[in-house]
C-alpha cells in the first residue's frame, strides 16, 4: 500500500474515504488481489429503483450522509424510465424514491447517468477504470483497450470515493491463451450483432473467447454484441480480432474453433404475436450521437403504442427534441430496468438482444427482437 493509501485508510482524508478504503481492501483481500490500483473513472451500476429497491437507496444515502464524495470522474447507470406510457405513469412513491437515488449520486458528484459512459468520457488504452455496468465493462476492455474488473454496484461506488479498486484479473492485461475462437458471419444490423453476442456468451461461459468477423463494423455493432455477450457470460472481456488492442499476442493455436452463421440467429427473431399495446424500444445500450442522428429523422409517425429512444444524459437537446406524437427520447433513462407491466405495456419490440433477455425477467413482459430497419418500418406502419 502506498503512503497516500495509508493516509486514506487512517482517516486523514475523512471518514468516508477511510471507510471506502477499508471495505475495498477487505474485498480485494478476500478475492485474492495483491494490491489496489488507482483508477481514473468509476461507473456505478444499480441505479434503477426497481433493481436496488429500498436497500440500495439506503446504502447510497448512508454513503452520502457520511459526506462521501467522488474523488475521480464518476458516472452512473441510467435510472428507471419515469415517463408514462399511453398516459399511464408509475406511482408517485416509486418516482420519488428513484429521484432520491439520482439526487444522492449527483450530490456525491456523479457526472452523467448512462449505460454507455464511454460516450461521456472515452478512456484511452491501458487506463484503469472501475466500471460496474457489464456492457460498458466489455466495451472498455474489448474495444477501447482500457482495463476494468466487472465491478458490482457497491464496489464501483467505493472506488469512486477513494479512486482505487482491487487489482483483479482484468488489470493484469489480456490472457496469454484462449480456449475458444469464434467466427461470426457478417451481421447486417446492430440487432444481429447482439444476437451473435447472446450465442457466443452462452457458448463460452466463463472463458474469454477470441471473436472473428466483427472488425469491419461500426462501433455500435460491437456495443450491441458485447452487451448481449455479457448477459450470458460472466467474463470481463471478449477479444475482438483486429479491434481489441493487443489481440495479436494471444495464443489461439490450441483453441476450439466454432463458426456461427446467420441461420443460427433465426430462432431469436420469433414471430410477433398479438400485441395491442406495443412499446418499441431503441437504445439498449444507450445510442451514440451517430445512431440518434440516423434514427430520429426516420420517425415520422408512431401508429400504434409508443417508441422510446433511450440515450445518455447530456446529449444535445436539439437532437433530443420530440416532434412526433408517441415518440419519446429519454435521456438518462433505462426501459429495461423499469416495471413496464405496471405501465400497461403488453409487449416490447426492440433491436436490442440484451433487452430481449432482460425485459421478460425484470418486467414480466414479452419481448421480440427485430432488426433496426424493421423496427422503424413497424413504427410507421403500425404492423
Amino acid at each position: 500500500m502506498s503512503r497516500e493509501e495509508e493516509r486514506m485508510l487512517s482517516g486523514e482524508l475523512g471518514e468516508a474515504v477511510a471507510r471506502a478504503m477499508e471495505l475495498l481492501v477487505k474485498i480485494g483481500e478476500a478475492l485474492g488481489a495483491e494490491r489496489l490500483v488507482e483508477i481514473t473513472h468509476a461507473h456505478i451500476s444499480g441505479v434503477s429503483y426497481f433493481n436496488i429497491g429500498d436497500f440500495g437507496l439506503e446504502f447510497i444515502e448512508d454513503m452520502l450522509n457520511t459526506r462521501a464524495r467522488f474523488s475521480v470522474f464518476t458516472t452512473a447507470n441510467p435510472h428507471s424510465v419515469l415517463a408514462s406510457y399511453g398516459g399511464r405513469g408509475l406511482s408517485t412513491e416509486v418516482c420519488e424514491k428513484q429521484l432520491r437515488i439520482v439526487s444522492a449520486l449527483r450530490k456525491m458528484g456523479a457526472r452523467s447517468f448512462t449505460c454507455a459512459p464511454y460516450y461521456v468520457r472515452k478512456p484511452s488504452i491501458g487506463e484503469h477504470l472501475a466500471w460496474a455496468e457489464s456492457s460498458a465493462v466489455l466495451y472498455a476492455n474489448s474495444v477501447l483497450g482500457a482495463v476494468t474488473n466487472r465491478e458490482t454496484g457497491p464496489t464501483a461506488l467505493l472506488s469512486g470515493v477513494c479512486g482505487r479498486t482491487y487489482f483483479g484479473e482484468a488489470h493484469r492485461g489480456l490472457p496469454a491463451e484462449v480456449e475458444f475462437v469464434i467466427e461470426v458471419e457478417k451481421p447486417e444490423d446492430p440487432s444481429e450483432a447482439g444476437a451473435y453476442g447472446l450465442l457466443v456468451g452462452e457458448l463460452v461461459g466463463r472463458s474469454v473467447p477470441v471473436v472473428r468477423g466483427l472488425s469491419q463494423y461500426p462501433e455500435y455493432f460491437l456495443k450491441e454484441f458485447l452487451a448481449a455477450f455479457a448477459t450470458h457470460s460472466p467474463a470481463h472481456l471478449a477479444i475482438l480480432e483486429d479491434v481489441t488492442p493487443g489481440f495479436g499476442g494471444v495464443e489461439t493455436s490450441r483453441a476450439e474453433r466454432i463458426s456461427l452463421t446467420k441461420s443460427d440467429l433465426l430462432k431469436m427473431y420469433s414471430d410477433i404475436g398479438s400485441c395491442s399495446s406495443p412499446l418499441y424500444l431503441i437504445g439498449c445500450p444507450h445510442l451514440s450521437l451517430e445512431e440518434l442522428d440516423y434514427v430520429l429523422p426516420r420517425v415520422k409517425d408512431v401508429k400504434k403504442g409508443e417508441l422510446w429512444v433511450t440515450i445518455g444524459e447530456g446529449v444535445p437537446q436539439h437532437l433530443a427534441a420530440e416532434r412526433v406524437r408517441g415518440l419519446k427520447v429519454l435521456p438518462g433513462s433505462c426501459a429495461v430496468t423499469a416495471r413496464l407491466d405496471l405501465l400497461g405495456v403488453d409487449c416490447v419490440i426492440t433491436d436490442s438482444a440484451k433487452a430481449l433477455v432482460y425485459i421478460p425477467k425484470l418486467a414480466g413482459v414479452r419481448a421480440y427482437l427485430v432488426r433496426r430497419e424493421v423496427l422503424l418500418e413497424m413504427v410507421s406502419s403500425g404492423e
Partner: protein
Amino acid sequence: MASEVSLQVIAGGAERKICGELVVYGKLLSPLGDIDASTGRLRSGSRVSGKIVAVKGFTGSTVGPYVLYSLAKRGLAPRALVVEEVDVNSVTSAVISGIPLLKIEKLTTLEKLYSSGTRYVCVENGKLKPRGVLIAIEGVDGAGKTTVAKYLLEVFRRCGFRAVYTYEPYYDSTRAVFESGAMKLTPESEALLMIADRYSHFNWVVREELDLGSVVILDRYKHSTIAYQGAAGLSIDWLREVQKYLPEPDVGIYLDVDPEEGLRRKSGSGTRALTYFEDLERLRRAREVYLNMVARGELIQVNASLELPRVLEKVVDLVEEKLGLDLEKCVP
C-alpha cells in the same frame, strides 16, 4: 466423535468463535429474489437471521449486497456465511454488511451433517464443528420439570434436531444406595453421592451426545444439589466447588412455583402427609437458593404457576431467544 469440517476464512470477523443454527441452502443464492428482507427469511421458510447460512454461492448482480447490508442494519443478518464458490458478490455482500465469510470445499459435506440431525454448530479457527446444546430444567418438586423437559424434547425432534432427554440421579446403583439404607448417609455423603453420579453421567452419557451435536435436555442438574443440599445446611460455596468441573448449561431454566403449590401437585402422586411441614420448610429454603442463582444469572426464571400452555410457550420462547433458534414452527 462428531465430524469436523475445514473451512477457509475469506472475509473478516471469522477469527472469533461463532455459534448458531446451521441453515443449508443447496443452490446459488440470489439475495433479492430468495430472501424476504422484511422478515429475514428465505422464501423456502428458514430464517437466516442469526444463523450460520451455507449456500452454494451467490448469483444475481448489483442488488444482492444491498439486501444483506439492509438486513445487517436491522440486526437481521446471518452470523456467518459459508459458500462453496467465492465470487465478487458474496465477498461484497459480506464485507459491506460485516458478516464473516468462509469457503467450504464441498457444500454436500454440510448437507450430510444437516440431514444427520446436526443443527447447532460453531465455527472457530477455520473449523466448523457440530456443537451440542445443554439445557437444564430446574425447580422444586411439583414445578413441572419433567413435563417441560419432555415437551422441549418433542419440539426439538419435530424441528429435525438430534435431541435426548435424561435425568439425575442416572444410575440405578446410585438410587439403590439411597433407597436400601445399606450405607448410612449424612447430608455431606448424600451430596457427594449425587455429585459422583452426576460426574459419571456427564462424562459417559451427556458429553458423548454433546459431541455428536445433540441437544441434551437435563431433568435436574448441578443446581438441584446446590439448592437442596444447600437448604439442608451445607455450604453453598463448597457445593459449587466440588461441582466446578461440570460445565454450565447453555440454557438453565428455573421453574418457579410456591412450594405449597408444588407439594399440592405432588400429593396426588403419594407424598406422605406426616412429613408435609418438614418438606415445606426445606422446599422454601431450596427455593431461596434457586432464586439466588437466578439473581446471579445462572438460571432464568419462569413462572410455573401459570397455566401449563403458557409455561411451555414461555420456555420455548426463552430457549429460542437464548440460542438464536427458530422453534415455533415445530411446536406440537
